[in-house]
């Protein structure tokens, strides 16, 4: 092959590599071009089937004790959306959401992006808490952040549910602080819900849940103590809220 022919050969080779690369790239980009929509989750804190009033209102617990609520914080994670037609499941990336309620915030919400528009969602799954791996990592995925008041430390992990308020016994007008700080792997609960009507994602959609502030209380007796953490009483609180904490609105 003479020099000129070699040059032509190289040019052709270069061009074909370029063309093949372009085809590959366009194939990839066509994947990315799948139409997607958003699904926004709304939550309202409630007590006794009404909006929960933080601080200002005293509630009578199932054990007939007087208490106020000051704040509720919950980690929801691992959002999964199942398509009715294909049974395919959409997993949200870095799926960690902190929903917080207090005197100034009776509602909370977050939006899941990138849900395929072709989906008709028949099942929604998520966890209350943070999975073991992320729980002991110092990476900040999603809403995980050790400075948001939900972390014990990088070793012990995050609180999955924080409920704080005050318990007023007969002789104590100031009240005692109630601290429910529930976490650890054994209290990492999954939750599945099938909406009455499947949710067609041909447009951006919203769904609403209530957070039942009474769910963690069960029949606990505050006169025996108002701190609930990594002990039997903490586990009792976790079992109390396991099923009823989050309910469709």
């Amino acid at each position, binding site marked *: 092959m003479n020099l000129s022919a070699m040059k032509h050969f190289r040019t052709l080779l270069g061009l074909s590599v370029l063309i093949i690369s372009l085809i590959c790239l366009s194939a990839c980009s066509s994947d990315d071009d799948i139409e997607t929509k958003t699904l926004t989750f709304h939550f309202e804190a409630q007590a006794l089937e009404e909006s929960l009033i933080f601080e200002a209102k005293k509630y009578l617990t199932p054990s007939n004790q007087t208490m106020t609520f000051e704040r509720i914080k919950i980690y929801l994670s691992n959002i999964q959306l199942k398509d009715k037609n294909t049974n395919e499941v959409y997993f949200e990336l870095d799926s960690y959401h902190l929903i917080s309620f207090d005197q100034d915030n009776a509602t909370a919400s977050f939006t899941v992006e990138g849900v395929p528009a072709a989906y008709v969602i028949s099942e929604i799954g998520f966890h209350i808490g943070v999975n073991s791996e992320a729980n002991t990592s110092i990476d900040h995925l999603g809403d995980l952040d050790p400075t948001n008041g939900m972390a014990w430390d990088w070793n012990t992990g995050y609180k999955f549910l924080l409920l704080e308020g005050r318990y007023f016994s007969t002789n104590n007008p100031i009240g005692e602080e109630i601290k429910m700080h529930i976490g650890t792997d054994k209290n990492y609960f999954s939750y599945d819900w099938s909406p009455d009507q499947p949710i067609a994602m041909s447009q951006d959609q919203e769904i609403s849940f209530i957070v039942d502030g009474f769910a963690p209380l069960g029949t606990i007796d505050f006169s025996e103590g*108002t701190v609930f953490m*990594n*002990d039997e009483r903490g586990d009792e609180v976790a079992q109390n809220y396991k099923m009823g904490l989050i309910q469709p609105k």
Partner: protein
Amino acid sequence: MILKLFRLTNVYDWKVKLMEFHFPPVADVMKLRFVSYIILLLILGSCSEDTQIQAPTAYEFVPPAHFGDNFDIPSDNSFTIQGIELGRNLFYEKNLSRNGQVSCGSCHQQSKAFTDGSKFSKGVDRELTDKSSMALVNLVWNTKFFWDGRAVTLEEQSLQPIADHIEMDLPLDEAVERLTNSESYKQQFFSAFETDEITADLIAKALAQFMRTLVSSNSKYDQFLLGQGELTEQEKLGMNLFFTHPEPSTGLRGGNCGDCHLNILTSGDREGYQGFHNNGLDTENNLEEGLMSVTAKAEDKGKFKAPSLRNIALTAPYMHDGRFATLDEVLDHYNEEIRISSTLDVLISDATNLNTKSDEQVLLGLTDEEKEAIIAFLNTLTDDEFISNEAFSNPFRP
């Protein structure tokens, strides 16, 4: 000759003159070059004048990745290099005190992690304040300032010691006047804030910018978290105890420190006044007002800010009134000297490593070995780079 050339205003003239033009001798070429250089220098000179009135240079604040980005920088006081530099000068400026003897840096000394080593800080006339100087560290992650939380921004905080009668005792209008009389400060304020008019508000902004840069993130503990260093077994035991609320029913032993000194920052909760606690220093009758002086709520009596424990080994004495001289005394307090009162933090009154609880006495029940381990961990929070960082040092030191 150049002037002649410049006068050629139309093409005809130019052509005619070009025909008449004789190339000049070498000496003239040199002159031509010389004049050109002068013009170039004049142009460049005018450019450098332009740069002096340029907008302040934005300073990119890069928080340590493991600290998280849960902080706010006020939208009307973003970081600039000139603002930080001015703030540093003001921080160490003794003329911001009535008699020119005291600066912010007098009670907040870098070598002591920005405390002063005294039980109570001394002001202009060497009169004592009623509080121990607070460490200034990682303030950008804080939302309340002073032991009683009376300031909600660093801007608000920064002016109070200047005007305080015991501390620096300089009325703010006089502070403004003194700085306005200084050509150097006038220029610095102009560079930082693009205005000729110095105001108390701008003094506060510059001081706040500087204080927000005081980040300590290279302690032995940080290096351990980032996988760049190891802790000893004793330090690890101390770390685990520090962050654990004890639970005797399951055998979980804890030092109970991390309930208030939260997570990696070891500082108080950022939200509302949740970072304020009554930590059992006094009985009911001796409780100071503390946070109650700000919120007027009875349940806040005797509560003070849980400070960051970063560099704690350098910031003795301890507590808002400097009552404990050593970390050993602090650990003894939390372990066996808690005073019961109506607002005592429930995470303290509830916490014990013992199998029996008493209503009359709060005992944490740590062993001597465990107390020593916690102190060993506290020593890993010292950051030598922080206390020797030139950018935080006194610029007026000879």
